[in-house]
């Protein structure tokens, strides 16, 4: 027997919950970035599970799109983190409370 659709949705929901609480608890910008990646992966898992249980390839294509957006987000987000580290010598989000330098 195979695990049902509900098991995959539950795994995805638990991973999303861990990622969402991690974004709030982490103070490190890199840690928050990694928690967002975890949430994106949890959503990918629901797409693939529904794609399997409805035998439709569209879900897997959406996963491909989400991965592209995650790659773009990694490039731009890490660029922002490096630029911020140059100005503040820190990646703590509490130090990002001032917009003007």
């Amino acid at each position, binding site marked *: 027997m195979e695990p049902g659709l*509900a098991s995959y949705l539950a795994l995805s929901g638990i991973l999303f919950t861990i990622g*969402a609480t991690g974004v709030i608890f982490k103070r490190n910008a890199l840690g928050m970035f990694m928690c967002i990646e975890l949430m994106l*992966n949890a959503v990918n*898992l629901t797409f693939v599970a529904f794609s399997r249980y409805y035998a439709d390839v569209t879900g897997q294509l959406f996963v491909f799109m989400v991965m592209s957006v995650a790659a773009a987000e990694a490039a731009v987000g890490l660029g922002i983190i490096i630029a911020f580290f140059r100005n503040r010598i820190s990646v703590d989000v509490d130090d990002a409370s001032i917009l003007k330098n």
Partner: protein
Amino acid sequence: MVTSALFFLFAGLAIACAISMVYHKNPLYSAISLIGVFIALSCVYVTLAAPFIAAVQVLIYAGAIMVLVIFVILLLNLDDDRPLNRLKYLYGVGVGLGLILLVQTLFIFYAVARTPNHGVEMNESVGKTLSIGTAMYSEYLLPVEIVGVLLLMAIIGAVMMVRRLNQPELEKVVAEELTRRNEAQEIGDYRISL
């Protein structure tokens, strides 16, 4: 039965690695735990009969994005013991949000498990590289091209953000590059002029 056992093994691994990622203060330990989550999820995709997505998951997430993240962590050389000065109410908000999301997850599990199973349609071609490629370049051609433009914008944005030159320096660099190209064109060597 084997699929079920493998699913629960890798689901447990993914959840354990995710909790370890949130728990660790050192970003490098978090990053390595996150790689564990990605690899466990890729094994879960294999139990869902999606080998292409599993391979792409390992290649892009564990291979490209996490290498970039670890590179940045090592480059910045962070220390992890800073005094805690974050707003205190955020901890309450975090716990509350986590509980709400967890209750929603349990509700979805309950609701989906109660509905009568309509049976998996055993279409073996779905999830193979051929079906994904066919759909990508026929029905979903426009979204794929938009994703290409998005990636180009991300590259340009990342370069613009990280460059350190101010305006006079930038103009000087551009002028030097232009004179170099003009000289190369006069010589007639097209490889250099590119």
